[in-house]
């Protein structure tokens, strides 16, 4: 699943650590999501959407395949 988390984070000038702290996860988890190695769970995806004040589908997009 593709996401624009890195871009959203950059807009706010947050480091991965800052974002991780706000979402109560580890920095490695944020990096794994941004590098598309890991798709977050629904509660985490909703938390991310709430933090950036955007709908979940605007942040996460299913792969074309």
């Amino acid at each position, binding site marked *: 699943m593709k996401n624009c988390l890195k871009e959203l984070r950059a807009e706010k000038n947050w480091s991965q650590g800052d974002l991780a702290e706000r979402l109560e996860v580890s920095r490695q988890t944020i990096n794994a999501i*941004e590098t598309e*190695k890991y798709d977050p769970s629904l509660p985490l995806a909703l938390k991310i959407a709430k933090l950036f004040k955007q709908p979940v589908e605007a942040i996460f997009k299913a792969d074309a395949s």
Partner: protein
Amino acid sequence: MVLKTLAWVLVAFCFLAAALGRGAMEQKSWNGFSMVLSFGLTAAFFLRGRVDDERVHSLKLKALGAAFLATYLLALKFQPHWPRMKPAPAMPATAYDFISATMLLALILFYFWRWQDARPAKDAE
């Protein structure tokens, strides 16, 4: 976190004891160490660490599955009726040995994948 540290201390003690008493280790002594080692490794794997989020749970489950598969295939190799079996070793492996092998492999896989998670993407700026 304290319990996890204690588990690692227990594991280190077992490895040290096994290394020091290598020549003189008898089956009975090794079984005792093997039991403690398997307990220590299992505790080190399952106890909560400093970081315990959903990605950690996901990686632990994946590591456990991969480790079980690998050690199960290894265990098949030690079955006496396996067609191309080598002669049995002087100290045959016990269930505790396989639990130790599984947990050790699971820990290695978990920490390796965790290290990979921390690495930036290949095309990162």
